[in-house]
């Protein structure tokens, strides 16, 4: 092989190796206040978490301890009017519900429920407890829910807290399989959610 070919091959290899195959997960250290979801929302985790490189949408981010399917802590930082909660897969045939300008605090659980029903293709979604709660110093809602994906018998449970602040939706959700994993990381989730500031 000529030197020119070798040089080109070397440059190409260097280019390929320089970019990581996956965007890369990063460690979130305990006890330090961090900004999440590319927004002004900040939290202080009490334990270590992994921040996933893949984001569910533009203004959101996901943390996990044992893997996304086992515990999933997602932050939605200021979803604007007219935008869905997370990235749409099929905008034309299965559009997701969007944040509305006249949204009330009761519409926050409905938005999550309908988005999950469309995105996960399931009607096994139920909301258990809904109560008013303070979120980042504003009046918001705290609700728990359970769901399972289609063709799966695994029951997942979730808890979410959110509020509409300045016309944008801020929310933190925590989901895990109902058997063992939900209770295991629930306390870690609550310490993160209680510490949220805007």
């Amino acid at each position, binding site marked *: 092989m000529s030197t020119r070919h070798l040089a080109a091959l070397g440059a190409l290899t260097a280019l390929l190796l320089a970019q990581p195959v996956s965007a890369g997960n990063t460690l979130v250290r305990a006890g330090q206040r961090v900004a999440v979801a590319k927004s002004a929302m900040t939290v202080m985790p009490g334990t270590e978490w992994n921040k996933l490189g893949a984001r569910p949408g533009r203004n959101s981010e996901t943390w996990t301890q044992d893997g996304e399917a086992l515990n999933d802590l997602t932050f939605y930082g200021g979803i604007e009017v007219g935008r869905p909660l997370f990235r749409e897969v099929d905008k*034309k045939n299965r559009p997701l519900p969007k944040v509305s300008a*006249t949204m009330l605090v009761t519409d926050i659980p409905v938005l999550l429920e*309908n988005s999950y*029903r469309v995105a996960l293709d399931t*009607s*096994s979604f139920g*909301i258990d407890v*809904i109560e008013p709660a303070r979120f980042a110093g504003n009046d918001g809602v705290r609700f728990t829910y359970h769901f399972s994906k289609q*063709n799966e018998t695994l029951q997942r449970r979730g808890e979410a807290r959110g509020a509409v602040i300045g016309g944008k939706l801020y929310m933190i959700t925590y989901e895990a399989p109902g058997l063992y994993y939900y209770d295991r990381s629930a306390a870690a989730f609550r310490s993160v959610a209680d510490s949220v500031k805007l």
Partner: protein
Amino acid sequence: MRKLMLALLLGLATGAAGESGAIAGDKKPLPLPTYGQAYAPTTVDERGIWMLADEDERRLQDSPSRIKDPELNAYVRNVLCRTVGEDRCKSVRIYIQQVPFFNASMSPNGTMTVWSGLLLRVRNEAELGSILGHEFGHFELRHQLRSFRNRRTGSDIMAWASVLVRNSGDIRYNAWGQIYAFDRAQERDADLIGFQYLAGSQYPSSAAADVWDHAMLESDASAVGRRGSARHKYVAGIFATHPTDLARATYLRTASIEAADVKPAIVDRHRAAMAKWLPIFLNDQIKLNDFGGSEYVIGCLAEGGWSGALLFARGELYRERGNPRDLVSAAQFYQEAIAKGDAPPEAYRGLGLSLLRSQQIAEGQAALATYLRLKPDAADAALLSTLVSR
């Protein structure tokens, strides 16, 4: 060389097809019907496909979306038995799934799955019977087994072609197309045998074509609601699994005109069976975020008159879309529902929320207060009372 290769491929193909059950003039006896009592599959392929179907049925029994209500299951079973006959329907096990889309399916071992979206959309027992008869036709004609054998032959051809023939792209493309065309022909056969069941039953055979007419109208409404265009083709694409709705409506309508049978379609018994489930299925449908399709479905259900429950559902649909004019319309529908007298107490909740979002604070709070008085133990009572007290 190329001719030799093609001849070899064709030889393989016909050889494989020859094994797969050409009954014509050989010593094998006619196979027993699949719906016979204690039917045992005999050939290797059929035993395998039944084994897989049995495993799937075991998982289906534990599915969280399964509706186990005995009355609804008995109703669907009765419609099936009236359509295909008592001796045939004994071999079928029906599972109703709470899935808000129009579909039903059949497994090779007699497992029939019906989705709640289908139960919501059929307007009478005859339409339900036409779909159930179609699915039973797949079971009776052993379609899944034949389809599997056809796919195996087609994929054999593709594999050998990719090895033996130099530019095998065309052969492989056509083999794929042939697989789908075979499946489409099977769907058409099932349509026609389902039609024959209807014609021989107490139900009118025109219901079969009606189902596809309504499906086309709903997909038009859905497309318009999503700013698309309403378009229907007569010829299905090369990789389509079913004939198009337009084609099915056409050949079934032609057949029903020839049959010329006039029988009652039985609406009342269907509505009575659905009455308990309508709020649940409508709730699932509204939460699909398909405004045009849901509006069409609710409008069809209201052909016998707008009840309080249907007006409430329409209000929920408009409130879910939530544009400023929609909220005004929703408030109006909720008020009409309340005036009818048979609306659920949630109508006051919907009315209150719509008025609050339309900046009519005092009226909205009054409606929410009425709801909290009617239903103090509602799940979101605490949250709603924060909206009232502000």
